[in-house]
């Protein structure tokens, strides 16, 4: 046995990040058996979780299935509704009075664009002359328009007719993961406040001291302490890099809105509506809506922000409390340092525009599990790999989010400032310069771990009305018949599938009563 073999993992902080990490590690390492790697989670009984992240990516289905959680239990407990897209309202341009503009970023495209890319045919007017890009390549927008679910009761757990993700109650989600981690996966839970972080001479964390549970030592520490970043930031002094020069929002005002009655439709997409100094998310859970206005306090007063959110919610906002959350947009210079890894808000935070928070936690977990170092000697190499890979993903995510702002033609100061040259990452402007004359290509995304697929970029670019001239080398777009057949097929599937799928609300009600089958 080598000295310092990694046997004991200590996670500091509960919340979604802490419990998701604890459950994932314990499941993968089979921590129920004492001879295997053991996981301890220390959680403060006094610090509330932020609990706003309510949208996931479709990756969450695989994550939950691999944890051995039943989709039915998850959906019932966390007030889950199904999400199959994000609908961007008024992002393209400032709306003319009474006339909104919108486009969809969908999860399912008929063809994998790497196999057959329909975009050039649509862009050149060979198909869908009167249809949007999204309507031309996917049936999912039609489903969202009608509040339909992406699956029916005859689909088994985690299986959909269309690709889908979740809207969830983050507080309940953390509870579900916590119960599962403690009761089924062998995670040890300590309820205490960390009072001190003890380092050894090499600057590795030896243990954390707590107020009520004394001393907890470990070989690897995971910092899930949120914005506070107690281990990686405070104890190990890894600095925070702000990206407020690129992403200009720094505040959110949030409000939970009950449904008018039990017949109000539940959207099967996240609705993101651009406003004068930011944008509002609108997430329909099974039991309520979660809304929030993400804005720049340099461009809007807090009073004005609350007023805009209340106007958006309408008369239902009367009597509802609004909560303000300051947002520190940016990331730690390193996510992994010595024997400490930060996951969740402690690692990085960017505005929740593309539901990247939980998704990047899953990515971090997967990487940590896969590369888990045997001992200290193996740690330095993993540290570099991990940091490089996640830094790449965060940067790509920032670029992708920035792209939404850059392509907008809105005219308020916030939006104009968002398009000034000094705020634009070169990596993004380079790609856009290429896409002015070339279709988006698989080779533009040559990393296996690209956070967003090629199709996502297409939905945003064409949805925003990005101007593209594909006349160069147009001879390569000769498969017009195939494009037209595909287009027709998509329209006919859209017609058929609409009659087969329940509404999101009907499906959620049936899940309460019956649940999905496991096969």
């Amino acid at each position: 046995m080598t000295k310092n073999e990694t046997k004991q993992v200590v996670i500091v902080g509960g919340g979604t990040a802490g419990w998701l990490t604890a459950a994932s590690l314990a499941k993968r390492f089979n921590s129920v058996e004492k001879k295997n790697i053991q996981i301890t989670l220390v959680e403060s009984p006094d610090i509330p979780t932020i609990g706003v992240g309510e949208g996931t990516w479709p990756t969450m289905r695989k994550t939950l299935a691999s944890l051995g959680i039943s989709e039915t239990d998850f959906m019932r407990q966390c007030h889950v509704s199904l999400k199959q897209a994000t609908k961007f309202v008024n992002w393209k341009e400032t709306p003319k009075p009474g006339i909104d503009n919108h486009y969809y970023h969908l999860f399912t495209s008929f063809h994998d664009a790497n196999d057959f890319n329909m975009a050039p045919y649509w862009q050149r007017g060979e198909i869908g002359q009167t249809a949007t890009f999204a309507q031309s390549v996917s049936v999912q927008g039609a489903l969202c328009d009608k509040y339909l679910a992406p699956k029916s009761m005859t689909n088994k757990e985690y299986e959909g007719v269309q690709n889908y993700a979740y809207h969830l109650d983050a507080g309940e989600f953390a509870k579900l993961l916590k119960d599962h981690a403690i009761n089924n996966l062998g995670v040890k839970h300590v309820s205490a406040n960390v009072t001190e972080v003890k380092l050894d001479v090499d600057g590795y964390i030896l243990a954390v001291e707590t107020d009520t549970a004394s001393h907890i030592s470990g070989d690897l520490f995971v910092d899930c302490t949120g914005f506070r970043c107690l281990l990686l930031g405070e104890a190990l002094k890894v600095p925070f890099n702000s990206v407020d020069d690129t992403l200009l929002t720094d505040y959110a005002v949030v409000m939970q809105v009950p449904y008018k009655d039990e017949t109000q439709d539940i959207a099967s997409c996240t609705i993101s509506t651009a406003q004068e100094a930011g944008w509002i998310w609108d997430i329909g859970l099974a039991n309520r809506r979660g809304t929030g206005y993400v804005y720049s306090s340099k461009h809007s007063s807090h009073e004005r922000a609350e007023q805009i959110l209340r106007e958006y919610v309408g008369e239902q906002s009367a009597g509802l409390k609004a909560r303000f959350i300051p947002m520190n947009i940016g990331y730690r210079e390193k996510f992994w340092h010595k024997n400490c890894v930060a996951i969740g808000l402690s690692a990085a935070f960017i505005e929740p525009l593309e539901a990247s928070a939980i998704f990047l936690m899953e990515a971090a977990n997967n990487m940590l599990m896969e590369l888990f170092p045997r001992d200290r000697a193996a740690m330095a190499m993993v540290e570099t790999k991990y940091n490089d890979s996640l830094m790449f993903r965060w940067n790509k995510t920032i670029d992708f989010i920035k792209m939404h702002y850059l392509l907008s033609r809105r005219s308020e100061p916030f939006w104009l400032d968002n398009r000034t040259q000094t705020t634009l990452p070169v990596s993004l402007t380079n790609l856009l310069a290429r896409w002015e004359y070339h279709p988006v290509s698989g080779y533009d995304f040559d990393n296996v771990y690209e956070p967003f697929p090629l199709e996502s970029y297409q939905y945003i670019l064409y949805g925003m009305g990005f101007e593209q001239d594909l006349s160069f080398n147009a001879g390569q777009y000769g498969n017009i018949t195939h494009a037209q057949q595909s287009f027709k097929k998509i329209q006919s599937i859209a017609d058929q599938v609409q009659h087969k799928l329940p509404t999101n609300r009907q499906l959620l009600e049936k899940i309460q009563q019956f649940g999905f089958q496991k096969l």
Partner: protein
Amino acid sequence: MTIEALSNKLHADLKLKQDPCLIQSKNKHFAPLVVGEFVPASQDFPIVFIKEQETGQFKSIALLGIEPGSNLFYSDKGWQGNYRPQAYSLSPFMVSQQTDEKDAILCIDSQSPLINKEQGEAFFDENNAACDWVSKRGEQVVSYVEQTQLTQHFINVLLDFELLAPQTLTLKATGKKETSLNGLYAIDEKKLNALSSDKFDSLRQSGALVAIYASLISMQRIEALVKASSKV
């Protein structure tokens, strides 16, 4: 369908025709089955499981044909099988059970083509009392409803023990195009054999084993269905 509680006021002059062809089964390619029917039904039909469209819940069925809308056992000359599935043979009787009442009420579908004023047996005798045969049919319907609950319990056990597996039947009748039937589930013999002795014994004790084997053996009837379908 018009469901009415059977009463000597409304239905005194009505008669029920014989039903040699199981009229209700016309154009139905399957018949819902209760677990007590598995053994007799297994001689004629493959017994499989499907999901209820609206709820996703499993139910057991007898396959009567291999294409939607085609019932190979239906004929104007009379039912072509030995066993007559109760889901159709009990028609037009059904029961209505109010939650606050102990007794079930016997009802009929007064729109049924079997009900008329001329042919068949009268529901009520000259004293305006329900005939004996009606009471018997009533008991059968009640027992069927009880069996439905038993069947649900049986299916839950199959699910708990993970004994069901999806099954796509790809069928090729002579002179016809290959068709596949999706959405069918069947008992997985390998999984049954791999059960622990405790679990297997609990199936024996609850009386589920005979139904399980009936279903397994009934799968041999698929070939007969395919043959019959090539003659249509």
